[in-house]
């Protein structure tokens, strides 16, 4: 069991490094704070791409219907 846990630790590290590398090519964050972070540390951008709660994106507000 101890061996299995050790293997899992390495698997998590491997998964982390691979997925972070995979996300490096998609830094499409346009807001200020994350734009700055992306320019300094591109791997950090991948951490929030496609996150929960819409990831800070907001849809356009519909125009009021004119009577």
């Amino acid at each position: 069991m101890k061996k299995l846990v050790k293997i899992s630790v390495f698997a998590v590290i491997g998964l982390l490094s691979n997925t972070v590398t995979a996300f490096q090519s998609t830094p499409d964050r346009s807001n200020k704070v994350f734009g700055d972070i992306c320019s300094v540390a591109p791997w950090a951008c991948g951490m929030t791409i496609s996150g929960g709660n819409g990831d800070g994106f907001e849809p356009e507000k519909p125009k009021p219907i004119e009577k």
Partner: protein
Amino acid sequence: MSAEVIQIPLTTLLNLAALILYTLAVKRITFFSFVLVGLLLIDVLHQGIAIYLRSFLSDERSLSFVFHAWYISFAFTDFLFFLCGLYLAKVVGSDIDKASQFILFTYLVLGVIQMLRFAERLFTDTNLMAWLYSEGIPLTNLVVTAFVISYVIRVTFVSLRHGVRTV
């Protein structure tokens, strides 16, 4: 094929890895295990909601639907996750550990942010919460994932040390 792989949210992958590692480390199912499963489900659900609603963005007639559904669906699922956590703790009769408390409370706050921003955009023309919404939500996603990973790694090391002592 590779483009499809990139569509998988990193937070979901990391939470899944954390759940596997945590289960192997503690060798039993705890309340935190349920919270991690809930976190995974809500990640997938939110991803689905975002993809579904974004598909309507190009249609002018659907803007009103997308605008309302965006905030309400995210807030509803956040509150549901929080309430399910409380209900589960009551049914199982277990205390909610500090890590689970933090995650559940974070989702309660996220739900409140969604509703406040929705009310602000719906009833006023101000943009007081715009910064909190656009920066706060991605930052919270990052904090929750970093918290889960660091907590599970800590539990794993404690478990390994405990295992060495008992041998």
